[in-house]
């Protein structure tokens, strides 16, 4: 396959190049997570007419760094009654699941860490690894709250994967590909060519718009559930389950959970960006289009969706466990099927 990665061109030695390529997303992930934590603190505060962290650096911008410095120093407790190997392994597995997704996320047409042609499928497959970590952590903690949280989390993630996958599948139908790069390339040429407006093609695609819009919303909702955020934060619902599956974790292990949550938020936002909102493409056709701009557009779009998730979190109450299932199976799933059906029909007719 033709390599599209600029690192290979820069560094002749392949081993070093691969290492560099794998490290770049990690660095990005850490920087992003710090920003997202700060964003969460600040946006929640502003919504509530507060100021948020103000005393750590100017306007509190060093707050996440202080938190990391603190978490490193924190004692790492393992409860006596816990199953130690599983307890210690769980946070790394969750983090791994989130980090592995970054392998296929195309930041720019010249930087795709690993350009495999089943990228969408890969993201969904790897994203499910987190479930294993959650169950492991919840079960190994030997705490009733953790176990309840983990059980809920699994049920939730598995049921919401289906409507989410259906939504993404319709994009695969429109693009005729599972390759994230190809999906991106198929949306080139301005905002009207994004898949939310039906992708490239004649004006007849306007018929698809309502369905793609609904599908993008369905994916957004499903992604909220997959990342365990309000209104679907039942696994860690503070008012019921103390802190859910990570009740017993402290120090760096907890930080792993924390990082993984924010990394997952970015992954789902990135998938939404790639599939429906044009990925790295500029909304103005060829204006502001180019390798550098690619990164800018991609990250800013993804950030918008991250912020949307934060915004939703601080607006809505949380659902109950059976209602969550109801929404997943009886609302999102039928709607996603209907939309998928119509999009497939449209594709067939065209």
């Amino acid at each position, binding site marked *: 396959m033709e390599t599209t990665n600029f690192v290979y061109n820069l560094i002749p030695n392949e081993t070093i190049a691969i290492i560099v390529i794998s490290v770049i997303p990690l660095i990005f992930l850490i920087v992003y997570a710090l920003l997202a934590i700060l964003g969460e*603190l600040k946006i929640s*505060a502003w919504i*509530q*007419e*507060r*100021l*948020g*962290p*103000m*005393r*750590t650096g100017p306007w*509190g911008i*060093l*707050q996440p*760094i*202080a*938190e*990391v*410095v*603190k*978490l*490193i*120093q*924190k*004692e*790492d*407790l393992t409860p006596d009654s816990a199953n130690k190997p599983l307890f210690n392994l769980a946070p790394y597995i969750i983090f791994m699941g989130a980090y592995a997704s970054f392998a296929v996320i195309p930041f720019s047409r010249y930087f795709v860490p690993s350009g495999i042609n089943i990228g969408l499928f890969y993201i969904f497959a790897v994203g499910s690894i987190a479930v294993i970590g959650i169950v492991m952590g919840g079960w190994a903690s030997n705490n009733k709250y953790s176990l309840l949280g983990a059980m809920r989390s699994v049920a939730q993630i598995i049921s919401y994967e289906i409507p989410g996958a259906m939504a993404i599948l319709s994009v695969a139908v429109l693009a005729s590909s599972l390759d994230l790069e190809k999906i991106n390339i198929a949306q080139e040429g301005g905002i009207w060519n994004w898949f939310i407006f039906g992708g490239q093609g004649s004006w007849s695609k306007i018929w698809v718009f309502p369905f793609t819009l609904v599908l993008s919303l369905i994916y957004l909702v499903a992604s909220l559930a997959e990342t365990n955020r309000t209104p679907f934060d039942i696994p860690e619902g*503070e008012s019921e389950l*103390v*802190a859910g599956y*990570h*009740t*017993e*974790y*402290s*120090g*760096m292990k*907890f930080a792993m959970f924390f990082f993984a949550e924010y990394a997952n938020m970015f992954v789902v936002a990135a998938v939404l960006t790639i599939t429906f909102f044009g990925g790295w493409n500029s909304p103005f056709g060829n204006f502001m289009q180019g390798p550098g701009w690619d990164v800018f557009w991609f990250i800013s779009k993804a950030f918008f969706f991250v912020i949307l998730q934060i915004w939703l979190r601080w607006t809505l109450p949380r659902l109950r466990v059976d209602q969550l299932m109801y929404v997943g199976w009886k609302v999102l799933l039928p709607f996603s099927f209907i939309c998928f059906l119509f999009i497939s029909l449209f594709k067939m007719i065209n």
Partner: protein
Amino acid sequence: MGLLNKLNQPYEAGGIILGTFEDILNWGRARSDWYLHFGLACCAIEFMAMNASHFDFMRFGTIPRATPRQADFIMITGTVTLKMAERIKKLWEQMAEPKYCISVGSCANCGGPYWEHGYHVLKGVDRIIPVHVYVPGCPPRPEAFQDGMIKLQKMIKEEAIFRKRKKLEEETKIELSA
């Protein structure tokens, strides 16, 4: 065991780098304090008010945690009864080091208005767990909570992490006094 415990070994020499490093570590701990709110009585309502928009406790970099494992300090706000005391002890033991305790209000300080005839009131939470900062008031104003928080941050900042450095300081103190 966290990194802290490894760093706890005696160092050959505590230089500037070590000192700066320690300052950074202390800065981190002072600026990012997650708390376990132990709301018991009247002071807990003022505590909620202190968390609310007008006073905004989060400005100090404090985030509420529901579980003791992730908390850095515990804020005891209200009357500790004998029935409750054992649970506080348990929670304190569940917290991860380094941990601190702020006792807020007359009741938590020494039994407060209930010190004389309160047959079921623990006369001061410092009888069961160590207390680092006492905030007086019944209930204290929200700003007084924050004043206590500032005092705690000041205390953390001045803490010596490395045993060697502590020793050095003690020696210099002895020298100075001699």
